[in-house]
């Protein structure tokens, strides 16, 4: 803390301050209330009989013995649940030509991935349900499984859903023209084929739902571990034929989501249907094994890409071919095309060049569904781009910092657009690069690297620039026909004691939404944040809104809170003016007092205004109706998305005999616009970087040739752990968006967006003396040893 006074030293100046989360202590003390903690009267539990095959026809189901087992209340099949649930199809209109098959809670006649739920067994306890599930006999006729990323497109491969005609979900193209000519005339061309494994979210709290249907009032309450309660309110209402106003979705404490908990899952829909069939509450909590085989997976791309440069090392064009396999159908309601779409639109975007051609094929295969997970598409786009930039640096003899400084979009060139159509309001690539260089002491590290190589110690330095999509407007889903809101809503009330309640549609998943909303309301209303209660995650108590996804909580939810707080403050001041017989423009609210705006002299306490408004309205001037509750909605306007940017660096040491990598250090310089809470932004960066390093070195869902997930447990699927993670140093550059008064953009995905790219470049830099290179994530010891030619 410096001694000089700053703008943060005004009363209630919370924006920009590292205030701790008010809910942290409660969660630490074990007082969290997660779905699994919820116990309702007459509640039952469901377990699922799952398919052992990746692709098979269901020939018969024999549940006779199981039905007689202790505690069993219902055994339901696909046909039973189809009676209460309308099918869903995961397509969006703006992805022209995309297709997918209708889905039901449980399949009628066919399974399309190993682990797919086939029969639901509802019993008094989960253990009894599992006992009975073991006694259900399902007869299958196995069908050939489509597993390989290329097999799905090869003629003659069995078609998973014959009604679709082929295994292609979507085909997209971008072409600015003349690419072949440009490459033919380029001074330098670098190219590579990249492979990105599947991985999954591995949230601490698994997916969970308690569905409680009351047939007497046609009322459904779903306690649901999700980040988007309103989206599910809409889905449950429409697919189960319940009036929307009768559907309440409550998301209590959520133990991480990362995008994983905003998709429709068969088990969750089945649980709602079972509650309707039984008229009793039914709980489903996925266990870890179920999570691995049924939570969405992400990534799984094979990208062939090349980059053309002129003789000065200026990038002039890129040409990209991406194939991604998304499972047997497209996820609902956000589809499984968004990741590929973001990959092929984000590639190259930090750089100036304008010639671009890209082909995206999204294909089906018999593995679990793939969909949006933290940093959707970004890690792939930037690993491809940044690795090619490093290869170009090596080819042209330029230092990796120098080639970036020649090619990044200049900081004064905004607004501008990428050849892929994305529009940038204002970014700070060069400021970030300069800051990174000094933060990591780049020149010293390079000198040390050269020195250590002489002693057979192989360290590598990798740099990666990125942009991140945040504050998405309706262009993201709404235009495609999805009933997913891009606006948020807030209702703020001053209570009779002068405390403040803010009910807002953005949700808390452990990332600190409630903290920043409290900060923003406190600052703009002029009250201490301790007096503000933020309410989230309940469709019955908060207005409709998009909640949190794609980095919108601070940028859109925060702006909603800001505008609501300002509106309420106006009401308070106008009322205070009446009471004090003072002109409102001479008054202000600070620290819970109405003060003289010019001198700061305290005039009357907010609590006193509230007391008068609620209990002694007779003392107000005639005609005065105090309005101490305001509602506000806000939808982003202006740029379709608020892009953020930044740069990361990774420092590694490769043991060239074992292929093991020690990650020594990681740096991030990021620009998410207005930083509301540096502590939380840093947490987001660090958590995001760790997830990205997980993808770079550890995490991969490995399937065998029969479509069986071979490492679906925490013993075999390696999540990054603290012991292997480096110190992560973070610095900020702030370029607020002018589209909102708050100026905040997203920061939740930036860490994940480019840490794999930085790590990929670092490992390649380390093994460069052996003329070895690697282009596959995760970079496991065996892959590194193979790259080095040691095995």
């Amino acid at each position: 803390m410096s001694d000089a006074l700053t703008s943060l030293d005004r009363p209630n100046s919370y924006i920009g301050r590292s205030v701790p989360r008010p809910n942290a202590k409660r969660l630490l003390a074990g007082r969290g209330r997660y779905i699994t903690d919820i116990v309702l009267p007459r509640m039952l539990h469901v377990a699922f009989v799952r398919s052992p095959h990746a692709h098979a026809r269901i020939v018969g189901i024999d549940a006779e013995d199981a039905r007689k087992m202790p505690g069993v209340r219902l055994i339901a099949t696909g046909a039973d649940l189809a009676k209460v649930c309308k099918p869903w199809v995961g397509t969006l209109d703006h992805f022209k030509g995309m297709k997918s098959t209708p889905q039901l809670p449980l399949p009628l006649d066919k399974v399309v991935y190993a682990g797919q739920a086939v029969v639901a067994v509802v019993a008094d306890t989960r253990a009894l349900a599992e006992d009975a599930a073991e006694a259900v006999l399902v007869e299958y006729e196995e069908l050939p499984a489509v597993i390989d990323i290329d097999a799905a497109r090869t003629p003659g491969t069995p078609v998973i859903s014959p009604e679709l005609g082929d295994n292609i979900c979507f085909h997209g193209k971008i072409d600015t023209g003349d690419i072949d000519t440009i490459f033919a005339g380029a001074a330098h061309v670098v190219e590579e084929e990249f492979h990105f494994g599947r991985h999954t979210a591995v949230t601490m709290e698994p997916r969970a739902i308690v569905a409680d249907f009351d047939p007497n009032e046609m009322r459904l309450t779903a306690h649901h571990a999700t980040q988007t309660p309103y989206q599910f309110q809409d889905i449950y209402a429409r697919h189960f034929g319940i009036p929307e106003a009768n559907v309440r979705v409550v998301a209590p404490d959520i133990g991480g989501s990362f995008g994983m908990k905003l998709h429709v899952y068969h088990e969750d829909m089945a649980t709602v249907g079972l509650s309707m069939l039984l008229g009793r509450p039914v709980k489903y909590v996925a266990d870890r094994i179920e999570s691995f085989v049924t939570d969405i997976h992400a990534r799984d791309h094979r990208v062939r890409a090349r980059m053309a440069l002129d003789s000065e090392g200026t990038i002039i064009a890129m040409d990209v071919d991406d194939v991604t396999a998304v499972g047997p159908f497209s996820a609902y309601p956000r589809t499984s095309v968004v990741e590929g779409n973001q990959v092929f639109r984000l590639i190259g975007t930090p750089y100036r060049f304008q010639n671009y051609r890209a082909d995206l094929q999204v294909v089906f295969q018999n593995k679990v569904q793939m969909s949006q997970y933290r940093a959707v598409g970004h890690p792939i786009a930037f690993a491809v781009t940044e690795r090619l930039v490093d290869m170009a640096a090596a080819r042209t003899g330029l230092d990796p910092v120098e080639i970036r400084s020649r090619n990044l979009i200049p900081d004064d060139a905004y607004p501008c657009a990428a050849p892929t159509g994305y529009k940038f309001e204002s970014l700070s690539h060069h400021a970030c690069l300069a800051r990174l260089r000094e933060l990591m002491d780049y020149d010293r590290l390079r000198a040390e690297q050269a020195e250590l190589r002489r002693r057979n110690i192989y360290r590598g330095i990798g740099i990666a620039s990125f942009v991140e999509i945040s504050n998405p407007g309706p262009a993201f889903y709404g235009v495609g026909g999805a009933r997913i809101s891009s606006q948020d809503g807030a209702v703020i009330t001053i209570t009779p004691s002068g405390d403040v309640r803010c009910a807002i549609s953005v949700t808390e998943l452990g990332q600190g939404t409630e903290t920043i909303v409290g900060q923003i309301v406190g600052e703009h209303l002029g009250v201490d944040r301790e007096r503000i209660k933020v309410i989230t995650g309940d469709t019955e108590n908060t207005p409709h809104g998009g909640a949190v996804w794609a980095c919108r909580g601070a940028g859109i939810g925060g702006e909603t809170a800001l505008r609501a707080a300002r509106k309420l403050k106006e009401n308070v001041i106008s009322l205070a003016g009446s009471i004090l017989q003072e002109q409102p423009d001479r008054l202000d609210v600070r620290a819970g007092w109405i003060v003289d705006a010019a001198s700061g002299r305290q005039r009357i306490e907010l609590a006193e205004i509230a007391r008068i408004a609620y209990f002694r309205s007779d003392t107000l001037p005639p005609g005065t109706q105090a309005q101490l509750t305001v509602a506000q909605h806000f939808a982003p306007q202006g740029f379709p998305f608020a892009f953020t940017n930044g740069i990361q660096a990774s420092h590694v040491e490769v043991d060239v005999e074992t292929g093991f990598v020690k990650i020594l250090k990681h740096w991030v310089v990021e620009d998410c616009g207005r930083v509301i809470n540096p502590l939380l932004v840093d947490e987001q960066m660090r958590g995001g970087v760790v997830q990205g390093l997980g993808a770079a070195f550890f995490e991969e869902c490995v399937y065998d040739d029969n479509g069986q997930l071979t490492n679906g447990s925490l013993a075999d699927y390696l999540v990054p752990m603290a012991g292997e993670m480096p110190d992560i140093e973070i610095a900020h550059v702030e370029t607020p968006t002018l589209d909102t008064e708050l100026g905040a953009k997203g920061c939740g995905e930036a860490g994940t967006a480019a840490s794999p790219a930085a790590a990929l470049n670092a490992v390649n830099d380390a093994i460069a003396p052996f003329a070895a290179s690697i282009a596959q994530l995760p970079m496991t010891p065996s892959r590194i040893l193979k790259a080095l030619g040691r095995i």
Partner: protein
Amino acid sequence: MKARAFSYARPTTVVEALQTFAASGDDASYIAGGQSLVPALALRLQAPQVLIDIAHIPELRGIALQDGWLRIGALTRHCETLSDPLIARHAPLFHDAAPYVAHPAIRNKGTLGGSIALADPASEFPAMALAMGVELEIANLSGSRRVPADEYFIDLFQTAIEPGELLTAIHVPVVQPSHRWAFDELARRRGDYAIVGSGILADMRDELVAQIRLVLFGVGNTPVRAKRAEDALRGRQLDQSAIVAAQAALSDDLAPPDDEHTPAAMRIHLARVLLGRLLGRIAEVA
């Protein structure tokens, strides 16, 4: 992931435990620290009718020196192998390996006896038992016997312990002043089961390798003594050429499993690297 229903017994003597097992018609499991058994129950990989909790049997505890052997009770927990001064001094490979076994919470519960009875081929303690040439004390209703480690490991999760028998103690021949030892492993993350690990106990006389026990784990169905590599070293100085010879011999000693992520060739390669590094360490202090 819920265990099937089972009944639970808590004997307080070894004999009572053995009798309880016999009375169960063999459909029982002993449970010690539960760190391997409980996950197996939850996954329904095992579903015994009776769980016999041996954690309250005083005879299975205690660490004491007896006639040149260190007797370590089967219930000795992983964390004690880390902290106990007798183990550190007389059975140093258990002590050196302990920090690499799982994580503190698991080490607080898991037992040395449980680990060696289970005999996971990627586990540290069974391999170190083999490297130190321990004897395993095994009890049944007709008495107790001691089985040398060289005869104890039979196949994957299969040992000299017959159904219903209890491993009661581990007897370690205490290390001598001429002994040198080294332990290390290559695991993707600290606390994971290793891809390859090794423990070596060498008796160095006049700078020559008089005797050596060279054990690798994670490379087969049981911990493996690399006997050809031992032969390549016995009677020689631990110089670079001897080390290279031992590394070369390893491919005759090992037939590791082959899978896409860790091809057999990789395990052999890593075993050689590890062996070279460990022998180098021993040579430095020898």
